[in-house]
């Protein structure tokens, strides 16, 4: 019998179990609501505009970056 390994993804450099199938749901679970000002997301190295969060599916091994403007010089 093979052991079932739940799918994982990488979020901001941290590996974690995949908690949602669609990107918008995963972000919402992290407190990032659609239309949040200043937040940008890249999936596997490509920016996903916020208008496409709802129809972007996530899969095992995906690499997600969630960023915002911070202090800087």
């Amino acid at each position, binding site marked *: 019998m093979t052991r079932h390994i739940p799918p994982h993804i990488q979020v901001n450099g941290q590996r974690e179990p995949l908690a949602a199938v669609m990107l918008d749901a995963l972000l919402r679970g992290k407190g990032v609501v659609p239309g949040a000002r*200043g937040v940008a997301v890249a999936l596997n190295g490509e*920016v996903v505009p916020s208008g496409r969060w709802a129809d972007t599916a996530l899969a095992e091994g995906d690499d997600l970056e*969630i960023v*915002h*403007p*911070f*202090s800087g*010089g």
Partner: protein
Amino acid sequence: MSDSFEIAGRRLTSRLFIGTAGYPNRQVMLDAITASGAEVVTVSIRRISLEGYAESMVDLLGSDYVLLPNTAGCSTAREAVLTARLAREALDTNWIKLEVIGDRETLHPDVEELRRATEELVADGFTVLPYCNDDPVSCRKLADAGAAAVMPLGSPIGSGLGIANPHAIELICARSSVPVILDAGIGTASDATLALELGCSAVLLNTAVAKARDPRRMAAAMRAAVEAGYAARGAGRIPKRTYAQASSPQLGLIGT
């Protein structure tokens, strides 16, 4: 200051760009930025803390200033290009202060990666402002690659050493086809004045104000400094001489 200048068709009145990092607290930062008179304010693009939202720079500054995101911390063209694209999405701007660092200790730019990233981002519709070496050839190549301005370093980031090679900066300004913005190394007001006297269109600084004993006062000093430098540049300095030349008339001296 009366005369304005242009970057990629955008007219700017203040010749001081200021950063948002390292202030003692939020209020001091806001006061210092106000005192600086800057229109363009730099921010970085960082991973959000998933444990809770930090205060948004967009909400804090976005309605009053032109936010210029940087790619600080990137060490390859690839990282910088993705950071720029995320910045464009986050801030709805195609302006990017492009930093590609080649050495962690000196934070000197990696010229090859910088040029590669500039080309790629220009092709993607960005207004690219690369932080670069104080080398006329690097600056020319970046302008040829489509950079909207070039931002040579005065001296290493955060060092406060001022303009280490004023001759190089003057040469870059004399020969550049795009505005030159002195970036990095400013320690005090006279450094900013010198940059404008050498022909720079503007100065970008952060640490010199944020880490001053009184950031608000230093920000005001920097504002006056770029205005003084710009006015002096326009007025035209006298040539330097090796020996003295009396300024009082030499005729009618008593006792001759």
